[in-house]
């Protein structure tokens, strides 16, 4: 244990003494550095004096109203072992002495040389520490006056946040992952993708969905946009048969399917799978919803049969809440189109000159540009948009014009 005597600091030009206004500590108190210990007043200013060190107060000099000369002992601290006493009494100088009666101002004692809390290190070592994420205030310096040397940095621990985890983990690309990788590469390599993004006002669709959810059959699950989009898609494809096609590359033939087997891109613990809603054109909304739910559960539980996973003629992909604002889906070859659903969010929309809140969802789709012209692709998505924005039309059979 060592003692440190703090003397009345020089509180400003020409100050010879200061009057004690109030003590904020008493013998026996444990104070921490910078804690307010005493308020004093000079003929020019009221000043709050903070503790220059941390320690236990052994004695104080003077009571409220007493005048203490600058440089005479004011307070004696007992310092814990290892705590460095300031080399000299800090000189406290108010930056701008205020008139008596003005609010008291805090005066920080000037840091004495090599006092604790002041890091000593060369600029180069400061840079090294910064780059290595080392907090210099935690490093014990072994150089003259406690200066931190380069060698001291070698043993210092970097901040946890930047811990460098060495090593790697190898995962073999096998099974479903290999299959996905091969099919994705093949599709992306051979198919000239034409991406098309359009926004759809799904305010009314949302209203319908909410109503259906409130009034749904007891055994039916909660309804998402997906079955509604699948159903709308089957209606639209009647007019765009060139999108419901499988390309037989070996024979050089486009095989138009009259049935609409809609693949549903599904995330499973093993990876992406595409179970198929067969003959979606012939199913009702709740049937489509139930089938999607059933297939997804089976795919996720790794119970889907091979038949349930092949034979789609077009694919719908939806990331639900992760849908983002736009995406560029990769076509599920040998199909020629894939329809992507982005996240539905409420946005300000201008309608008839007024800004109104509408629920907007983007459709991000890709087409095989070898077989689907951009014009047809756009027209198909616009037709889908029309159905989704006027959801009653999803349930009205297409009127063949001819």
């Amino acid at each position, binding site marked *: 244990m060592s003692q440190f005597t703090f003397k009345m600091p020089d509180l400003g030009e020409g100050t010879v003494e200061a009057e004690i206004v109030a003590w904020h500590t008493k013998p026996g108190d444990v104070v921490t550095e910078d804690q307010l210990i005493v308020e004093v007043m000079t003929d020019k200013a009221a000043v709050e004096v903070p503790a220059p060190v941390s320690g236990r107060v052994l004695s104080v000099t003077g009571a409220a109203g007493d005048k203490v000369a600058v440089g005479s002992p004011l307070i004696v601290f007992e310092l814990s072992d290892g705590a460095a006493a300031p080399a000299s009494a800090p000189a406290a100088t108010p930056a701008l002495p205020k008139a008596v009666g003005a609010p008291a101002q805090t005066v920080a004692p000037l840091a004495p040389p090599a006092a604790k809390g002041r890091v000593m290190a060369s*600029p*180069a070592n400061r840079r090294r520490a910064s780059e290595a994420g080392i907090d210099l205030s935690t490093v014990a310096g072994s150089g003259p006056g406690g200066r931190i040397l*380069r060698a001291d940095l070698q043993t210092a621990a970097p901040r946890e946040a930047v811990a460098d985890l060495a090593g790697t983990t190898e995962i073999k690309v096998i099974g479903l992952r290999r299959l996905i990788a091969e099919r994705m590469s093949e599709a992306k390599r051979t198919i000239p993708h034409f991406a098309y993004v359009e926004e759809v006002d799904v305010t009314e669709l949302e209203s319908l969905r909410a109503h259906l959810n409130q009034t749904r059959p007891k055994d039916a699950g909660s309804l998402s946009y997906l079955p509604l989009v699948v159903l709308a898609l089957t209606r639209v494809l009647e007019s765009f048969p060139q999108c419901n096609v499988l390309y037989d590359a070996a024979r050089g033939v486009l095989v138009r399917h009259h049935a609409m087997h809609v693949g549903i891109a599904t995330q499973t613990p093993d990876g992406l799978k595409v179970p198929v809603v067969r003959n979606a054109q012939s199913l009702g909304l709740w049937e489509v919803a139930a089938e999607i739910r059933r297939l997804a559960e089976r795919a996720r539980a790794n119970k889907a049969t091979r038949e349930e996973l092949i034979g789609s003629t077009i694919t719908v992909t939806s990331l639900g809440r992760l849908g983002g604002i736009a995406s560029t889906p990769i076509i599920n070859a040998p199909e020629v189109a894939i329809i992507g659903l982005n996240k539905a969010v409420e946005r300000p929309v201008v309608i008839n000159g007024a800004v109104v809140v509408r629920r907007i969802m983007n459709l991000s789709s890709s087409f095989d540009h070898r077989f689907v012209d951009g014009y047809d692709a756009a027209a198909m998505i616009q037709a889908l948009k029309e159905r989704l924005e006027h959801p009653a039309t999803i349930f009205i059979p297409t009127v063949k014009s001819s």
Partner: protein
Amino acid sequence: MANMNMIQALNSAMDIMLGKDPSVVLMGEDIGYFGGVFRATEGLQRKYGEHRVIDTPIAEGGIVATAIGMSVNSLRPVAEIQFADYIYPGFDQIVSELARIRYRSAGDFFAPITIRTPCGGGIRGGQTHSQSPEGIFTHVSGIKVVMPSNPCDAKGLLITCIEDDDPVVFFEPKRLYNGPFDGDPNKPAVPWSTHPKGQVDEGYFKVPLGKADIVRAGSAVSIITYGTMVHVAAAAAAAMNVDAEIIDLRSLVPLDVDTVCTSVKKTGRCVVAHEATRFSGFGAEILSIVQEECFWDLEAPIQRVAGWDTPYPHAFEWEYFPGQARIKAALKAVLEPA
């Protein structure tokens, strides 16, 4: 190539320029008939005549003023001030007229003048023959300041300066005229024939201004210096077995900041050395630039080695001259573990 000391190299430079360019004239005290107190212009009046190599009165203000008048009338004067210690009567002409002619006439006139002047100590010359006033001139905008440390650079730099269309003050460290000097006055004098830079091309060649010379590459510390101190610093570092990078600035204005800062960023340590007095010396400028450009690379405070802040003394010259001991002390301080 021929062996030349610095006097012969300077003489060769002026000889070549007098022969090459009829507008070049030499002028100064005792430079013609007598050939200069250090013999730098020996034989040139005989060769080129009294109208090309002109003996002037002992009036430095007049020498500079006359040179200015000649230069704005299409001549290219090389004026010798016999000792840098005598340059002050010409100081007003240099600062108030010479340095500003181009600026003041909005470029209508310029003054292609080279003022040659021997500087520095080490010759028992006392306070009137030993000064190093280069820092006074580096502080004046509009003039270039050059100081070679060997015959080869002296010749190439002097030709560059004579051809330069703006004024240059060309300081010649007189202790190096006859041989390199490592700061030890007790050792026998060494001739330039023992030094690689004493081999000088006899023909026309130039050494560019603003390009420092890395005399020795090293990794432990950068010693930034010029003139006589180049040799003193090299000897001190070698004696201490310190892998110092020694940089001879050669021209102070323009200054090769890139070479200096690249070196200090590499070594992280810097010693600046010059013979001139320390306070407000040119070393302060180097220090300032180094800390501005290289602060985060510095391992230790930059050290300065310079002459004491007194007049150059008649007695105790070797206590005054910043010799190897002072360089070694600076190296020791800057190389402390950091």
